[in-house]
């Protein structure tokens, strides 16, 4: 499931954002980068745990289409997206995004956009457990507003 050099990884395994970022910075296509922006999403401590499910095949395909658009829109040198699925504990990394570009504005905007997309448009479903109770989490109005910022 985790081929080296892949742009998009969906994995039930724990991952280390800093190891991923170090690897990404050394990709050949990132050699001319002046800016690398990374985002790491972590499970907050309010819940006892999170469970993420996805739609195998479809989820990857949709994320890839979106990421290709981001790649072109911001003329990125490279990007990397990792999304955890399965059961997670507080402080576990859930999601990691990195983008490299010659100048900083492009990398900032691309990572920000990709994250807004993953939050409200990618095919993941999140369940939270608190005090023995499990409930489905759905996108907040804020998440939908965030994504609208990117409509051209």
């Amino acid at each position, binding site marked *: 499931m985790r081929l080296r050099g892949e742009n998009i990884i969906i994995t039930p395994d724990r991952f280390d954002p800093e190891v991923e970022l170090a690897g990404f910075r050394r990709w050949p296509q990132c050699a001319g980068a002046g800016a690398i922006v990374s985002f790491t*999403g972590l499970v907050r401590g309010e819940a006892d745990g999170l469970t993420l499910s996805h739609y195998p095949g*479809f989820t990857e395909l949709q994320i890839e289409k979106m990421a290709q658009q981001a790649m072109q829109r911001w003329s990125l040198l490279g990007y990397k997206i990792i999304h955890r699925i399965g059961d997670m504990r507080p402080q576990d990394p*859930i*999601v990691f995004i990195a983008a490299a570009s010659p100048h900083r504005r492009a990398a900032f905007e691309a990572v920000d956009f990709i*994250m807004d997309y*993953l939050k409200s448009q990618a*095919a*993941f*479903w999140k369940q939270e457990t608190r005090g023995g109770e499990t409930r*489905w989490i759905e996108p907040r109005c804020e998440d939908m507003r965030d994504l609208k910022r990117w409509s051209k």
Partner: protein
Amino acid sequence: MAVILFFGRLSELSAPLDIDLPKDIKTVDGLIIWLEENYPALKSGLKHKGNRIAVNHEIVDLKSLVSNKDEIAFMSPLSGG
């Protein structure tokens, strides 16, 4: 055989289904009516606002065509990250 999948909140209503669709079912809309009649647990869950429907990995609307070879996915509102 069509494959019908349910994700998120909807996965609690039904396991995946392998079904021979009746010949008169031509659209997503028709499929939903048929599913609700034959699988009472799905009643009123499928048309919930915010759900998405994909046929063979393409997001579609209620008027889209379905056939007996399709993979049809019903997805409750998404939440990643």
